[in-house]
């Protein structure tokens, strides 16, 4: 595709503007986070302060644990549901579409208080009830991601081809459908994970302590430490995303080398 000179100028300006808007605050925040004592010089003192705070590791681990559980629960619930809605329950799709938008419409306060009483008894009054809330708030995003991903493949024919080759439904889902929508599943997992990791409102309303609620308290004690905390959170989220993507690519490579062995 060839662009005219005026279009190239417009695209370059727009890109520069976007880079400035996104990168400038990050660069500035990073620079501040490395300021030394009294704001003079540069050092790791703010990051040292951060990791030495009471509850840093424990709250971070709690949040990671809840986010992982929420991500997995989301996939366990939504992948088979989305597949069924695309194969045999097509007429239910508008209803499920609507249900999945509800978490964006219902005020968080109503959701937190109302849904808490309907949680399974086994998790009520434990921090694991947050997992269910995290699944609910991530639902609009995870469902949409999976739905788009499934719409992009010829699901009916793939399922029929797999069945005619002798595969059961579970084999078909695990070995044909899931790998075909791996991008969508990774996206849904990451969205659920990121939303859960950063969720503050419901956690605070239900009086639980996770990393986001802890940061609010910790940030009030040291302004440069608070900036270090926000940079840490951002970089941490980006690193997690890279780890998830790398994991997916490595699994693919392993699968390819296995087949090369079979053929050799």
């Amino acid at each position, binding site marked *: 595709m060839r662009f005219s000179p005026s279009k190239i100028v417009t695209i370059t300006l727009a890109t520069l503007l976007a880079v400035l808007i996104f990168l400038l605050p990050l660069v500035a925040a990073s620079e501040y986070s490395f300021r030394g004592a009294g704001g003079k010089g540069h050092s790791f003192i703010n990051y040292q302060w951060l990791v030495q705070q009471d509850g840093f590791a424990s709250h971070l681990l709690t949040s990671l644990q809840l986010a992982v559980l929420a991500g997995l629960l989301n996939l366990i619930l939504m992948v088979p549901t989305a597949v069924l809605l695309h194969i045999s329950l097509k007429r239910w799709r508008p209803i499920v579409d609507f249900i999945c938008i509800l978490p964006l419409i219902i005020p968080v306060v109503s959701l937190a208080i109302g849904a808490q009483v309907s949680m399974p008894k086994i998790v009520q009054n434990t921090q694991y009830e947050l997992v269910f809330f995290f699944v609910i708030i991530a639902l609009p995003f995870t469902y949409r991601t999976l739905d788009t991903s499934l719409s992009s493949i010829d699901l009916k024919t793939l399922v029929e081809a797999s*069945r*005619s*080759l002798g595969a059961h439904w579970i084999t078909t889902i695990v070995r044909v459908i899931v790998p075909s929508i791996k991008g969508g599943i990774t996206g849904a997992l990451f969205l659920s994970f990121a939303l859960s990791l950063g969720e503050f409102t419901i956690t605070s309303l239900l009086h639980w302590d996770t990393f986001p609620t802890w940061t609010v308290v910790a940030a009030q004690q040291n302004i440069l430490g608070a900036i270090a905390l926000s940079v840490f959170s951002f970089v941490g989220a980006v690193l997690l995303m890279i780890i998830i993507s790398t994991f997916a690519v490595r699994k693919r490579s392993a699968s390819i080398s296995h087949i090369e062995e079979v053929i050799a």
Partner: protein
Amino acid sequence: MSTLETVQRVSSKLELRNIYRKFGQVVALDDFNLTVEPGELIALLGPSGCGKTTALRIIAGLERVDSGRLDVNGIDYVAKPANQRDMGMVFQSYSLFPNMTVSENIEYGLRVRKIDSSKRKKIIYEKLELVALAQKSNSYPHQLSGGQQQRVALARALAIEPTVLLLDEPLSALDAQVRAQIREEIRRIQLSLGITTIFVTHDQEEAMSIADRVGVMSHGKLEQIDQPITIYNNPLTPFVASFVGEANRIPAELAEPGYVKVLEQTIRVANQSFDHSHGLPVSALVRPESLQIASESEGTPGQVVIKSFLGPLTKLGITIEGGLMVHINVASKEVSSVDIGNRISFKIVAEEVMVESA
């Protein structure tokens, strides 16, 4: 028993008896009967919506029947789920698993059947050789052309040594040259393996060139099933006559019993079961090659309005009295001097013609 326990599968006999299938108010198959002999290749031919794909999907177990019986080697298959039928299917839209390489695609049905690794490797190699794609074993479907993808789909279906091979318009998405090439490959492989095969298509040339017998379908029923040459030369119904090959519909009059008067010639009626007594106007169905250029005294005159060169043959469109256009296929050298606008005469040379109500 695993499909692959037998090294050479015995060709299967397939029988569909009184199959009925309705979708809402639409009857897709109405008292449908078909018997496919072991090792035979049957082409189901018909226009869109005639029920041919439904019949194939019922055989594959991808569609249920409302009533009727489906037997493979005398065993009732109606209640068997698709994954237990051991039938290989090739779809119109390639249907290769996008996340798997060519060899993984072929291996899929074998893994499902828990065939051991060394045997799997051997079968994959054999099938890749069979479809001449050994060098593409590690390619992904998106790296292959349409023709190559369809050959992989064929290899994948054959790898499980199916009882019956089902081909659902497998060449429709391919360009003309590749289509002819793959068609020949399918026939070669089918003959070499002796596998009972059903080939669904709406392309009559495809059906005629590949099949042992062609079944022409209309409105959920088999109008006629016979060898290609019989279907073409002796169609049993006006629908078959007009759907298979080309036919001019020329107004005619019923003459003495069993004969029709068309273009001033009296010719025997091919479909003797046609009701001669109702007195309604009729049309004679005359193939372009059943017409020949004649002298002015013995032929019907007309004006040439179309001349299409088709290599050894030339197709002329001739307008006769009343404005009707008649197509005629003649040897190109015979009409080299004929131009558009010329007047020529022609006559029917067929011994019998099909008639239908006008």
